[in-house]
């Protein structure tokens, strides 16, 4: 763990995230200040800090997109760097169990992720309180805590992926590139691919006189199910529900004009915390499952490797 905190790499990435976080908050915070002038305080205003998109993107979107990079940066050379510098032979010839090496690598990574995320959320909250002058209520704090848990798990999944590659590939460059390739694949191509697949399985022709509503629903379903294969979608859906309790649905299919769309896609009153949790639990379980699966594979591969090849 000492490794992580003292490395230049880690400093760079956390500085980047803190910076972006602060910039987004100040923009969003000022926006909220303007909008809410002369209005009664809306419910759960504090969470807006994290979810409103401001001029660019919201903090939540930012973490969903760049969070994986933290995981990858922390893990991609964890095992094969020790192999290259031949310290792995030394570690396995000390009186410790071999699995404690890989467990320590993973757990220290998770700890670092948790510390970074908690710190950023606290910084943003502090800034937010100063800017909009609203103190978070108990429910908002709980929602943020759940958000943090989901985020730590999500980034841990990426840590697991990158450790897996560092176990299987001998060269640190290869494992870094492989992890980045997976990241790009999930962030861009799965959603693109979902669109293509949906078009192929349930093509919607705009030229025909009437559009068959069932076809549209099928189209939408295919697209949704496919995109659920991406951890980004899982994470996005889960965090949106938790942090934006006014949101009615995790789907985007609404067949009406913009005004009705707005009124339909949002509740009049926020969803209670417990109800939001119910919606989130399946997503949460999926994220935990893929994280555990990923770490399990890399544990097995590491334990079965011949020392000769180490």
């Amino acid at each position, binding site marked *: 763990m000492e490794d992580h905190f003292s490395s230049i790499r880690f400093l760079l990435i956390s500085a980047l995230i803190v910076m972006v976080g602060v910039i987004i908050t100040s923009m969003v915070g000022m926006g909220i200040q303007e909008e809410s002038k002369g209005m009664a305080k809306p419910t759960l205003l504090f969470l807006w800090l994290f979810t409103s998109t401001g001029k660019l993107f919201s903090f939540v979107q930012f973490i969903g997109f760049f969070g994986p990079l933290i995981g990858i940066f922390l893990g991609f050379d964890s095992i094969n760097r*020790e192999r290259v*510098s*031949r*310290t*792995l*032979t*030394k*570690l*396995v*010839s*000390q*009186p*410790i*169990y071999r699995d404690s090496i890989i467990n320590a690598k993973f757990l220290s990574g998770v700890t670092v992720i948790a510390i970074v995320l908690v710190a950023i959320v606290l910084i943003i909250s502090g800034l937010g309180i100063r800017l909009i002058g609203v103190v978070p209520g108990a429910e908002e704090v709980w929602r943020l805590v759940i958000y943090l848990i989901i985020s730590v798990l999500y980034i841990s999944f990426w840590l697991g992926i990158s450790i897996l590659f560092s176990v299987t590939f001998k060269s640190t460059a290869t494992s870094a590139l492989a992890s980045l390739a997976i990241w790009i694949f999930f962030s861009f191509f799965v959603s693109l691919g979902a669109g293509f697949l949906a078009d192929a399985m349930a093509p919607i022709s705009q030229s025909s006189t009437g559009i068959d509503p069932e076809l549209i629903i099928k189209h939408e379903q295919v697209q949704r199910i496919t995109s659920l294969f991406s951890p980004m979608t899982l994470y996005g859906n889960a965090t949106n529900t938790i942090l934006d309790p006014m949101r009615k649905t995790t789907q985007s299919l609404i067949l009406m004009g913009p005004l009705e769309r707005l009124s339909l896609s949002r509740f009049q009153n926020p969803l209670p915390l417990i109800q939001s949790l119910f919606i989130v639990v399946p997503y949460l379980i999926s994220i935990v499952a893929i994280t555990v699966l990923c770490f399990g594979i890399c544990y097995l591969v590491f334990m079965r490797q*011949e*020392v*000769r090849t180490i």
Partner: protein
Amino acid sequence: MEEQIIIEAEGLTKKYDSQIAVNNLTLRIQQGEVFGFLGPNGAGKTTTLLMFLGLTEPTSGKVRILGFDPTRDPLHVKEKVGFLPENVGFYDDMDARQNLRYVARLNRIPDKISTQRIDHWLETVGLLEEVEKKVGTYSKGMRQRLGIAEALVKEPKLIFLDEPTIGLDPDGTNRMLDLIHSLSREKNMTIFLSSHLLDQVQRICDRVGIMIKGDLVAIGPIEELAKKKLGLDKEHYTLEEIYMKYFKEA
């Protein structure tokens, strides 16, 4: 009191796929002995060491190190055995003390004890003047000496050295050999030394074993092997002559 048997191997065999790396190895090594393990590259010396340490599972046969089975009970073996691998690795961004401290902690040696030990062994291997430097700046010889210090920090009963003098200058080699000799004589440590620098092995080893293509073709004190192979009349012999004779026969 009868000397304690430290290493006991019986019918030890290791196969990689169809290739036999170590074939039916049987040997016994007693406490305080300096044993030289000779053989050409790829003869199975390192594989044997890895099996002794419990880092590789033997295909068949039995090993006992200090009475423990390294396959079943690797932690007990690793606790009491020091190992200097052929190309020893360190954390290059730490200095010598930090590297040794890390290993000491992995061995659950309290910092109070390890602080003294670390300085003692660093002085013995002659690295105390360079102790502030990062290990990344060390030369090959210095790394080798640091490796010895690292293997000694846990004050093992048995120490495996894989090519310990490679990369050392003549003075460093002499000091290393003297150190190994004194460890065995003064501390009653058992030393298992794998090497192909025959004149050095001849200087310090009580007994040698010669391994060729996975088979242990000879084992015993150097004089005995000389008598057997070179004849009784020969007074001046070198280990190299004996070794070459075995090598040509195999």
